[in-house]
């Protein structure tokens, strides 16, 4: 965004503030949630208003806290795999991968190459299922009803592929320490490649219908601007930080054993840091993700899908931190094992926790309708905040 635009935004807000002071507008407290369509679950936000502007906002999470970190201390590794599926429930497979990778790292087990490729494919399918719904949902927050129907319609193509191979639409629970539960069914790769066409068509459709439209741009451009250094301080990740111009994607920048290195894709960034940039980056990420899946389906190597692991999984004592680039941002598991059947301590670093912790900062001074667009564009999933 050019400087004059930033200055104009600040000036407009300052003028409004002056009007409110002159009118001595009495402040009021507005409670949004915990049950509100814009909160994707049960996030409660308490806003103090001055006229139409938010003076301060305080998100109140915890209505869905399930105590995963405590539960993980009394479960064994295969059971935890089921548990962590429910953190980000729209892209469930992506939750399993970093946990399994952390355990594999400590056990010094490496999954065969084919398993890593299939993991990557499912990871990207999870990303698409998640972000397609985001693209539909962000329209709903702005009053556009059509995109959400398109999103639910076209997400089915992705979910069907996940279901065809794993048996689970939302919670595949397909990843295992040392590889995967099963190999792919016959004909799955061709079907997936054609499903990617549907996903790309959806992206075009949503771009024509919503993201490129005037109303959408007027509601989101220049709203909720997050400068890169503030975003980094708050630990923003994923599309939120890439929309602030930070070129950082763990798929490209980390030594992950998954197969992203074998695919050719772009890391999309945007310099503006506003709500529009965040939505636009996610739209492009779905496209890139479809490209990755297509390439991986075409080049999938043959071979086993499971390394040799003991029947009863015991992870040697040690500590490992593994993070991956999940649909919502960087998700990491800090696994502390003391050689038992389950972890001694498992710290789950979820992206939405940090992404929504910035809300008090970014919501200060915005107008009430913009609260909804900013929250929608920051994109959080309650299970991912509350764990």
């Amino acid at each position: 965004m050019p400087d004059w635009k930033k200055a104009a935004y600040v000036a407009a807000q300052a003028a409004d503030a002056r009007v409110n002071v002159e009118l001595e507008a009495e402040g009021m407290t507005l409670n949004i949630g915990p049950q509100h369509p814009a909160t994707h679950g049960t996030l409660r936000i308490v806003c103090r208003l001055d006229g139409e502007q938010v003076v301060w906002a305080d998100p109140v999470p915890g209505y869905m806290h399930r105590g995963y970190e405590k539960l993980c201390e009394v479960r064994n590794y295969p059971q935890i795999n089921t548990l962590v599926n429910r953190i980000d429930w729209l892209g469930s497979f992506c939750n399993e991968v970093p946990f399994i990778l952390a355990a594999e790292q400590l056990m010094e087990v490496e999954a065969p190459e084919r398993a890593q490729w299939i993991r990557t494919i499912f990871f990207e399918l999870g990303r698409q299922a998640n972000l397609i719904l985001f693209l539909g949902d962000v329209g709903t927050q702005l009053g556009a009803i059509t995109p959400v129907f398109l999103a639910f319609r076209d997400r089915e193509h992705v979910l069907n592929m996940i279901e065809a191979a794993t048996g689970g639409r939302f919670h595949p629970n397909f990843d295992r320490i040392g590889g995967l539960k099963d190999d792919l069914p016959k004909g799955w790769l061709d079907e997936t490649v054609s499903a990617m066409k549907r996903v790309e068509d959806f992206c075009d459709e949503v771009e024509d219908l919503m993201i490129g439209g005037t109303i959408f741009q007027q509601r989101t451009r220049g709203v909720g601007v997050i400068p890169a250094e503030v975003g980094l301080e708050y630990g923003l990740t994923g599309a939120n930080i890439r929309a602030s111009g930070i070129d950082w994607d763990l798929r490209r920048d980390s030594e992950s054993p998954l197969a992203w290195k074998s695919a050719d894709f772009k890391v999309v960034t945007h310099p503006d840091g506003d709500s529009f940039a965040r939505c636009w980056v996610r739209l492009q990420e779905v496209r890139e993700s479809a490209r990755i899946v297509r390439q991986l389906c075409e080049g999938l190597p043959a071979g086993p899908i499971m390394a040799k692991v003991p029947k009863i999984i015991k992870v040697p004592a040690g500590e490992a931190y593994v993070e991956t680039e999940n649909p919502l941002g960087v998700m990491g598991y800090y696994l502390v094992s003391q050689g038992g059947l389950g972890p001694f301590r498992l710290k789950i670093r979820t992206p939405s926790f940090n992404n929504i912790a910035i809300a008090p900062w970014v919501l200060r001074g915005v107008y009430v309708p913009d609260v909804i667009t900013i929250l929608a564009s920051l994109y959080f999933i309650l299970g991912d905040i509350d764990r």
Partner: protein
Amino acid sequence: MTATDAPATEAPAIEAGHHQRIVDGLRGSLGDAVLDVVLERGDLWVRVDRSAWHGAFEAGKRKLGLTFFSFLSGIDWTPAPGLSGERTFKGEDADEGDEPVEEATEVRTGLAGGDTRFQVFARLFDVRRHVGVTLKADLDDADPSIDTVTDLFRGADWHERETWEMFGFTFDGHPGLRHLYLPAEFEGHPLRKDFPLLSREVKPWPGLVNVEQIPPHLDPKNQPAAEAPPSEAPASDAPAADAAPPAEGGTE
């Protein structure tokens, strides 16, 4: 893996250039307050004295380019006998000669060592050089408190609130330590090892109780061999088929 008293003299073998730069930078800023340094599997752990906790973040952010705050949390190293249903658990497909996990009795701390029951750890990252470091600090058992880092990383606010309610660590200088997840009147610190998990007190291990005993008359081991010839199948089906219509008629 063990804590060294004189870390400056015996430098661990750190090879990766960026990691070495971080270690040098932290040692340069904090001196002897850097208690231990571990590089394992391409990742760096640094344990600092708790008086140098804030200084480590400051040096990381201002001098070493570690501008990205990933997370902050705590750990309780108390051995956890109360929650160890797993120790009595032997699944049906246990390997032959699979000995039960030994009961841990003494505190075993993890990478970069530790002298106390409580530790706080946090992770910073450099998004330009793609290198991260996990910082650790020991806390006093009786009074687990440490300086806040919210003045350097505003995102630490929620993490410190969470750690405060889950472990009971206090962060000196934090703008408002209040409950994040739990209701305001909640008592206790759930992630401490001595906090009982009620469902595990009731059922030590769900894997054990969920295996229902097969009634003896249905157990295949008790059946005489060569039972259920094909001739018996229609005979058993027929009464069931006969019984169905009257039952339906009865209900109507």
